[in-house]
């Protein structure tokens, strides 16, 4: 039977044979759960009892939940501080590192090393840094310098940036490496031509380097934004005694989802939050691509 097929027909048979298992996987493990999450978001369910239709009740509850708006704000604060700060720091480091030859590989290794760490482990290390005297490293340094103590993780205003810091720190290495690859891809002849024309270094940076780095910048902005909008590991591990605390001041959306689903077992409410997260990620990515591509 198979032998009678033409070469083209044989290829079709092979292609679908190769794709059979993966297609089952994607349908069962990706598409069905996506649809399922959307369906559950319109239901009331506590895992034990019956599922009942709730209509838009879960979304209405979310809209009227002051904790959700607090969490919504926090999630965007993580994004709006984390993304620009890590973008600027990583560009500045990559720009200067690119111009150094002496021990270049060693310096690059120092900056990249944090990217290879486990977020959970490093969250605990930073949590220790933030402890009050005599335990915490930062407060010990402040005490030695005669500066008053800072209540990093116990402060409702400072806890969020304190948790964001290790997340930014761990991501820098990746962004620096990507920026350096982008910088190397700019033809040297452009710089040489500009130099012959006597253009200043500053003008070269603004008129040649940054415009030509645009694809790299777009990639890093979208990639790191998605990361900050989904922040969880650091927050959870740095506030295990009161996840998202103090007073919900550090709680991001993913942590609220986790608690609604697996602490309160309110599956419908949690599913509605995941749909909101999906929409936020989609809209933020599309807006960024639109703004950064055209411009």
């Amino acid at each position, binding site marked *: 039977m198979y032998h009678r097929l033409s070469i083209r027909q044989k290829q079709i048979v092979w292609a679908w044979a*190769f794709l059979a298992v*993966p297609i089952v996987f994607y349908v069962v*493990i990706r598409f069905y*759960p996506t649809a399922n999450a959307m369906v559950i978001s319109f239901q009331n369910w506590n895992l034990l009892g019956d599922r009942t239709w709730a209509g838009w009740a879960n979304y209405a509850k979310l809209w009227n939940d002051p904790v959700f708006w607090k969490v919504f704000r926090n999630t965007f604060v993580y994004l709006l501080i984390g993304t620009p700060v890590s973008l600027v720091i990583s560009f500045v480091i990559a720009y200067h590192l690119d111009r150094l030859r002496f021990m270049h590989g060693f310096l690059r290794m120092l900056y990249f090393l944090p990217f290879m760490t486990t977020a959970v482990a490093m969250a605990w*290390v930073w949590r*220790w840094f933030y402890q009050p005297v005599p335990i915490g490293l930062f407060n010990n340094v402040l005490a030695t310098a005669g500066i008053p103590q800072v209540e990093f993780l116990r402060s409702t205003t400072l806890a969020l940036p304190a948790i964001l810091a290790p997340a930014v720190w761990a991501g820098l290495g990746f962004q620096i490496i990507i920026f350096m690859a982008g910088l190397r891809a700019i033809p040297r002849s452009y710089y040489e031509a500009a130099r012959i024309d006597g253009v200043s270094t500053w003008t070269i940076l603004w008129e040649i380097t940054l415009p030509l780095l645009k694809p790299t910048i777009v990639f890093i902005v979208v990639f790191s934004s998605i990361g900050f909008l989904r922040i969880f590991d650091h927050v959870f*591990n740095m506030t295990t005694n009161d996840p998202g605390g103090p007073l919900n001041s550090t709680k991001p959306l993913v942590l609220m989802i986790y608690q609604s*689903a697996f602490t309160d077992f309110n599956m419908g409410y949690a599913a509605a939050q995941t749909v909101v997260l999906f929409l936020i990620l989609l809209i933020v990515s599309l807006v960024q691509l639109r703004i950064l591509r055209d411009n």
Partner: protein
Amino acid sequence: MVSAVAEIRASSKTLLAPGTPRKPANTGQVIRWLILFTGGVLMVMPIAYMISTSLKWPHEIYNLALVPNEPHLENYTYVLEDGRFYGWFVNSLVIATITTISNILFDSLVGYTLCKFRFPGRYIVFIAILSTLMIPTEMLVIPWYLMSQAFGWLDSYWGIMFPGLMTAFGTFLMKQFFETVPDDFIEAARIDGLNELAIWWTVAMPLVRPALAALAIFVFLGNWTAFIWPLIVTNSVDMYTLPVGLSSFGDEADVQWELIMTGAAISTIPTLVVFLVFQRFIIRGVVMAGLKG
């Protein structure tokens, strides 16, 4: 993008060739180096303090000195004697390894099929797989949990692993790289009478080894450090992965920071060592995956 990078590398090498006069190091360059060096040292400080504290006695953790007065391995003996960390380490290793192998096989097989075969429905399959990139994992954890509960996958290796056995990112990455394999090679193998499975495995796969390595690094690291799904799907302490175990251990150890730092070091040092050994290779892989994926 990657080929452009390679080209520029070559040209920057010629710039530094002996023929061209090398500028002597000026003060500006020295200052730039010193600032970047200081920054780099600060970057590794958290890692250095983690390791240093894991070698200190409890009374010493208040000491800011990076080098312990009396370095010792008691903390490691204590933490490992307990046995749980050993189990979590094995769990993480097994799960990350199997997931990596699965991704290497399936992502490349799908990527290869979508790249080198012409068949009706090809475009739809490609778009469908690509579209899953937009769906955040967090949206799927609730359905995955319900599925695991229904099929009895909770608290098992399979339960931890199944969501990550194939990834759209890996498939897309491999498809991009199979574009670089000339169709003539595949055609020639076909004329030699190799079947399609053999062509993929013996002709195409060896030609994309660097991409396979890049994929392996990303998948392994991703699963080694994964937290939220293993946290949800495991109940018993024996089934925890390293990050989940470390998180519960941290709570339990409370103020014994030298023990927490030891646990953190145990889960971090393996990937750091692998990185230091394969440094150039890993950085190239990260750039490749970052720019193509």
